[in-house]
């Protein structure tokens, strides 16, 4: 089947703008925000969200959280190459941490991310922002901020392309 476009560059930009406002709104007591992107594309989404948030006056830092070493599916498949974890100098203790990923499906990556966070410190609140929620959850995990909800079949595949990595922007389903 030919890929069908779900989001174009302008849609992605608008979704990230809206999510930035939703993050500010939910952050009622103006706590320090730390946006941690999950490699690979989550890291770039976190940076863009941080720029949007800084633009509307929020105090925010962005970083990256690699979850490879915490995955529950390491056995029985080729070893994955880990990516760097970059925690902002101020750490995450007592902060409001927003995890940022491109596509949410089973929730297992986020489970791994929560375990990884626990080894790095103790945030006050942890929230989850994703560009696309495609359903098929296997764990009791739910996103707080969603760019687009997409009902999918398990056999379908969502491809997120971002300018920083792929030189063009779109989200397609196939």
């Amino acid at each position: 089947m030919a890929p069908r476009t779900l989001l174009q560059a302008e849609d992605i930009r608008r979704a990230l703008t809206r999510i930035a406002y939703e993050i500010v709104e939910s952050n009622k007591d103006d706590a320090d925000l730390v946006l941690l992107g999950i490699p690979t594309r989550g890291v770039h989404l976190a940076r863009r969200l941080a720029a949007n948030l800084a633009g509307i006056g929020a105090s925010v830092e962005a970083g990256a959280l690699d979850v490879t070493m915490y995955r529950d599916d390491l056995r029985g498949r080729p070893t994955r190459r880990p990516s760097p974890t970059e925690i902002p100098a101020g750490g995450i203790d007592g902060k409001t941490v927003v995890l940022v990923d491109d596509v949410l499906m089973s929730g297992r990556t986020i489970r791994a991310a929560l375990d990884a966070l626990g080894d790095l410190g103790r945030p006050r609140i942890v929230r989850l922002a994703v560009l696309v929620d495609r359903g098929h959850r296997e764990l009791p995990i739910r996103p707080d901020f969603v760019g687009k909800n997409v009902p999918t079949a398990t056999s379908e595949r969502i491809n997120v392309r971002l300018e920083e990595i792929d030189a063009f922007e779109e989200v397609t389903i196939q």
Partner: protein
Amino acid sequence: MRHLLSTAELTRDEALTILDTAEDMADVSDREVKKLPTLRGRTVVNLFFEDSTRTRISFEVAAKRLSADVINFSAKGSSVSKGESLKDTAQTLQAMGADGVVIRHGASGAPHTLAHAGWIDAGVVNAGDGTHEHPTQALLDAFTIRRRLHGAASRGRDLDGVAVTIVGDILHSRVARSNIWLLTLLGARVRLVAPATLLPVGIAGWPVETGYDLDAAVDAGPEVLMMLRVQGERMGDAFFPGEREYAREWGLHPERLARLPATTMVMHPGPMNRGLEISAAAADSPASTVLDQVANGVSVRMAVLYHLLAGDSRGSALRGEEEP
């Protein structure tokens, strides 16, 4: 990658993947909770038939930081002193369910036999075999060189054009052999400097230059000067007239240290014979990377254990078969 027996069988991609993974492991060693759950439920056996402090402890710390269970086995005080063969020891470990075996043995090729004889299913890491290879030492040396040269921007870089001079007991040194294959694979230019009696026969086929004059090598100002330990315990015969002559002709004494460029790093795989191949002044100078090498050893061994034991060992990111 199923086993790590020799740096000669690594591809450039595999070597760089291990070094890059070690960068991430080094970050773990800097944080408060120095532990990852990655190898929980796996058992790593340290099988040491030869004395070792830093390598055994380094592997033990590495395995524990990845949450593996570690069993230390040293030949002294074990059934080996009653004459048990390597095969019987291996089959005992197999019956106990070892997932990984880190072996040091006095006989060159013992890790290869252990990996390929069909006695065990475990992944095998060579932690030094006779005068053959010591691959994790070479990997940690390459990692240390890369970090000193490129700092935080080390990921993905090789050692293109870096001049490395290895000095001393090449003949008995498995460290030298592993380093020669790995450093040249990564693009470094390796030069050996040693007394003629401590250079192996058949060296002509190696991808290195050789020389006999340490003063000339020092004045050439290499980026890396690696001093090897004089391995007294492996020397049945006299390879040089005496310790004082060796220290004068082949040792890094303070006067030679002063002639080195400030940017040259002085490496030593340890344990050091202070006053013989390296003076205390050189070992303790800012140019010395000896303690960096020890710290980096843990990170590199974590990376090796991860790639050997975490996933399905029949394929791995080391082969470029990365998951999307």
